[in-house]
């Protein structure tokens, strides 16, 4: 069993070499950019950066041009989007239902509930830069706290959206 494994000084040197290589490894550009803007993105607030790295995957900063489809209604995908620059429009059954501006997050409901996209989202400005990512909810054994905080932040976002659409409905 494990207690019988006796690592020599030479063995340990090999472990340390791996540690050195890991510490010298450059961070991916997307990850570096994400961590530099982490505090500006509400859903990533109060999450330990190491845990944040571990609970998201497929992280990309994507540029779109006017009328590009970001999401198509009925599609299946787990990406969540955060608008960094530019505007987007949301269409449900070809009807314009909302305009989204920088700082807004979308696509979270299909990602959380694993349902088909309930609306299409199109780039509505000359161009737009979006942060796209997926949540690795299976990493709960190592990042339970981070996942809890992330879902709490996402719930606040969804709640804010509901409140704003309720207010708009009452106004009408």
């Amino acid at each position: 069993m494990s207690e019988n494994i006796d690592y020599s000084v030479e063995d340990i040197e090999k472990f340390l070499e791996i540690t050195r290589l890991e510490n010298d490894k450059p961070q991916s550009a997307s990850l570096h950019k994400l961590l530099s803007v982490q505090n500006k993105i509400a859903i990533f607030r109060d999450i330990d950066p190491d845990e944040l790295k571990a609970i998201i995957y497929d992280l990309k900063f994507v540029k779109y041009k006017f009328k590009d489809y970001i999401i198509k209604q009925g599609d299946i995908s787990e990406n969540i989007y955060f608008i960094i620059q530019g505007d987007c429009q949301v269409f449900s059954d070809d009807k314009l239902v909302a305009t989204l501006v920088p700082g807004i997050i979308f696509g979270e409901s299909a990602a959380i509930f694993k349902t088909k996209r309930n609306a299409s989202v199109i780039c509505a400005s000359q161009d737009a830069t979006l942060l796209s990512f997926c949540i690795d909810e299976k990493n709960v054994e190592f990042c339970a706290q981070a996942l809890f905080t992330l879902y709490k932040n996402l719930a606040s976002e969804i709640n804010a959206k509901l409140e704003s659409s309720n207010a708009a409905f009452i106004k009408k």
Partner: protein
Amino acid sequence: MDITNIEDEVYDFDNIFFQKVSSVVEEGLDFIENNHLIEPKENYVMLIDYLGTVINYFHNLDRSFMDSTFKKLQSDVNNLNGLYKKQKDILQNVEEIFKKNFKKQSNVIRVYTQEILEYKSADNLSNEEKIELKILLDYYKELDAVCFETFKSIFKEDCKYLLDSLLVVLNSKTYYLHEMFWHKAADSEAVQRLFRIQKIDGDISSKNYITHKLDVMLPYSKEYQYFKDCLRIYK
């Protein structure tokens, strides 16, 4: 009912029951701390099955692949993984352990069991004795339930703590196994040839290897989903 004695008995029981896993955990955590090893937040334990297969495969291509450190680490990871699975099973079988192991050596329970047995083995119990036996049996039932609840609460907590700590050790060592393996793979001419022949894009890395496997695999199979999950680790 005073449960202090029961609690003390459970703590003593746990000390012996978890002695081995506890010493492995302590040794593993010390090893990580003393050598300032990395404790990844990514779940490398998930990769163990895939790693086992790919290590065998590459080892068949290049016999010079494994040095003594690598062999030791692989054996260490396999042992820790076995222990981890065993510990997980234990957490699922608390009631059975209570009945089969704890009750047999609990003094608190033994005193009452003995007394009940004495009554039961006696011939011709008087009415008064029958009433006493009934009271005793009722009390024993209550005691058994209290003992079990006390046992469950302490045992589960101890088991969970060891399981979590074991996972930290296992994850760290699996990370080092993974890294050592792919550094060796990158230097191996046989593996380089394999990547060329199979037209695997990019440098020799686990990420590129898994991506290639997914490209040639039947989508939506169980194995496909497993490799997709594995890919999440690589940023």
